[in-house]
């Protein structure tokens, strides 16, 4: 069952929080093109803001992929391509997208959920075991969710058996050099809380992950990104059902950190949906809050103009409190650690 995106109530008015503190957050740059190529995923995570699952069919068209590559080619200012989903490797054009972006000299990051290596495509049954050497050959930066270094929390959030499969998938990445000193192949992990609480400090958790994964499984990785759960889609549904929504929002509001606000990721990237519409971030994308230009017109990749996108007013809503709480949160982890 898909979850209908729900925007925050005006009770948690992010714009008002900024106004009260005299904070203005215009875009600073567009150095990253984050592209959500598909909502199809081999997993059904309880907190997923994309509402991704094995039954989703949305995927970017070949024309959309081509247009993203054209934007990357025409704009040297956009140095990074961040491919996400769903499980982005399940998009039929994924491999070519990566290879062509690498050929353009872009830094390519893939949000890789680890288990897709072993599960393969849930619809076509295509194997994805080739991914570790493919990633290594293209020197892709692999960013993988692993909610905890223990089975209990990981499986509670991502499904039974996910932790063990994730360990096997990490082993395969390590075997081709990922996370190994001197290889230049970067494997970063992503932590997010398994419930309505804020992440622990990133540096301490990273040390815990490194110690435990090395000691118990002989696994290594480069860095840990802590991310806060956004109160949207499946996680919002959980908050509503468990009667914890207001308490969570009040926690985020009370933990508002101006330093984290100044570093929100939407100031440096744009997010592209499978249909080519542009958003200020992946969360706005799932809430269908289009990025708009100064005239209020929605932005798309099909009529992309860099200066018009850079001059846009970023659209905030209550969920943005998730990115500004405590040490902050972004697709690259804490922003004010």
């Amino acid at each position: 069952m898909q979850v209908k995106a729900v925007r925050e109530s005006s009770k948690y008015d992010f714009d008002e929080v900024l106004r009260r503190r005299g904070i203005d957050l215009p875009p600073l740059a567009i150095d990253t093109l984050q592209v959500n190529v598909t909502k199809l995923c081999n997993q059904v995570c309880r907190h997923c803001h994309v509402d991704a699952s094995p039954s989703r069919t949305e995927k970017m068209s070949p024309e959309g992929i081509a247009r993203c590559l054209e934007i990357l080619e025409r704009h040297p200012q956009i140095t990074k391509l961040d491919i996400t989903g769903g499980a982005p490797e399940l998009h039929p054009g994924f491999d070519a997208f990566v290879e062509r972006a690498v050929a353009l000299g872009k830094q390519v990051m893939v949000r890789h959920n680890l288990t897709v290596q072993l599960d393969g495509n849930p619809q076509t049954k295509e194997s994805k075991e080739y991914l570790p050497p493919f990633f290594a050959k293209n020197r892709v930066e692999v960013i993988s969710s692993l909610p905890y270094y223990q089975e209990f929390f990981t499986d509670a959030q991502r499904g039974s058996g996910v932790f063990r499969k994730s360990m096997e998938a990490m082993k395969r990445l390590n075997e081709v050099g990922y996370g190994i000193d001197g290889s230049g192949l970067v494997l970063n992990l992503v932590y997010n809380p398994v419930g309505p609480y804020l992440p622990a400090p990133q540096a301490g958790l990273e040390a815990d992950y490194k110690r435990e994964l090395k000691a118990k499984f002989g696994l290594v990785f480069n860095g840990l990104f802590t991310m806060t759960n956004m109160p949207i889609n499946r996680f919002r549904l959980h908050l509503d059902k468990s009667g914890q929504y207001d308490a969570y929002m009040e926690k985020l509001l009370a933990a508002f950190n101006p330093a984290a606000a100044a570093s929100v990721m939407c100031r440096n990237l744009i997010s592209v949906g499978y249909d080519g519409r542009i958003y200020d971030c992946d969360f706005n994308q799932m809430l269908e809050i289009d990025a708009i230009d100064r005239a209020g017109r929605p932005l798309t990749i099909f009529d992309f103009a860099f200066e018009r996108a850079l001059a846009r007013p970023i659209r905030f809503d209550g969920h943005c409190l998730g990115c500004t709480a405590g040490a902050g949160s972004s697709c690259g982890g804490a922003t004010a650690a």
Partner: protein
Amino acid sequence: MSSYYESEDLKKFAGIGEHAKELADDFFRYYGSVTGTDGALSKREKALIALAVSHALKCPYCIDAYTTQCLETGSNPEQMMEAVHVAAAMQAGITLVHSVQMQNHLRKMVL
């Protein structure tokens, strides 16, 4: 039905300043500097101690608050449960060590 220990009441903790503001301010300053900062002990270690004390003194407000605090400072469920066992073992030990007093008195009572 009204009952004691409503979880919503934890939010009213600051209300202890009513009728005794200066004392409450002193307390919260002290409480914050002891529990809310890294010192010779880390915030994570302090949260585990507080969780154990919460159980020993059977405070439901504190159990909720420090379960969350333990998670937010990076403890895992095994560490949290072990902290509660420390509290339980201490309480058992404290009960049992008092049997020395009982035995002392017993000896006085026996010819």
